[in-house]
């Protein structure tokens, strides 16, 4: 199974945390609950998914269960790209 978590973690750390080192997050942590990504940030994350892996995130897929942790993103991208 392709690992999406490493490039996603790198993107999130560089883009949203700017290497500040002030916060850490586990694979299961909610980005919203940890105040790492807000609504606008999720739109940036969606663009990253679409440009990096060529997927199209549909409106009804814009839900926390798909996007709001590395674990959720791993599952979402795995399902999406297998479809």
């Amino acid at each position, binding site marked *: 199974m392709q690992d999406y978590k490493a490039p996603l973690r790198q993107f999130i750390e560089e883009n949203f945390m700017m290497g500040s080192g002030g916060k850490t997050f586990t694979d299961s942590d909610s980005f919203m609950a940890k105040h790492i990504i*807000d*609504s*606008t940030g999720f*739109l940036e994350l*969606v663009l990253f998914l679409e440009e990096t892996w060529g997927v199209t995130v549909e409106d009804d897929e*814009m839900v926390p269960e798909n*996007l709001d942790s590395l674990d959720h993103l791993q599952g979402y991208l795995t399902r999406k790209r297998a479809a």
Partner: protein
Amino acid sequence: MATRPLGPHVLELDLAAEVERICAWMVDAVANTLHRRGVIIAMSGGVDSSVCAALAVRALGTKKVFGILLPERDSSHKSADRGALVARHLGVTYELQDIAPTLEALGCYRQRDEAIRRVFPAYGDDWKCKIAIAGGAKGGINFFRLIVQSPDGTMEEARLPIREYLQIVAATNHKQRIRKTVEYYHADRLNYAVIGTPNRLEYDQGFFVKNGDGAADIKPIAHLYKTQVYALARHLGLPDEVCNAVPTTDTYSLAQGQDEFYFSLPYDRMDLALWAHNHGLSAAEVAAGLGIPEEQARFVLGDIDAKRRTTHYLHARPLLVEPVTEIAG
């Protein structure tokens, strides 16, 4: 936990006492804290600015209130008409300045339309547009849809990618910032303070432009729910056109309600949801009070928190490395 079920009664006010309280505060704030000689109020014709103007007249008298009407290409002519109506009703001096030429020179309309054309290439100068929020009220992540209308009336819509969304918002934010620039010109000229007119729902949920309509010296109704502002409008005897005005953004060329653009529910129900959230009511209690499914109530409450997080930056003052204690406060 509230002891009574959620309903409109929770927002009832002693209107006369509230008017007296706000007016006393306004006199003290303007004279003793800000040391200004009067107030500037941009009058959109909506209920918020009209109530603020009426309160200012009640507090300071007509001679210390200067009204400004600031229409532009996409604002409804009804707004300026209603603003003028209120100014005349209150007996305040006012001036109308069309800010469309300034916005044109800044590139506001061109920058916005460039972004729209990246989504709808056929979009022309004679088309109309608006933005609508989606997602949050259904438990999803908030995103925005762009809706356009061609001259023959055909409507099209699509989700806005982040770059286009940000550019459209950045371009249209020129409108609120130019209005504020004009307001402060008159404030400086007259040595007056500028009134900001957000109600509690707008203030809490970050429904304003930083250094645009968010900029002001005093915000007399930021503690009041929109429902309470309407009640004050009626109490203050403002014209029916104001008391019955439907809240709009008046920013995009297609008609657009505030709930469509930003909030999860119409304002009267959003007020109750926000009040309930502020008073610790459960999703079940909100659902019962608003007559919506409990799941939707949970989404609405979650969306209130999401908007608070996303718009925290709008409220933030410039950050300093360390406090400069000599001028704190």
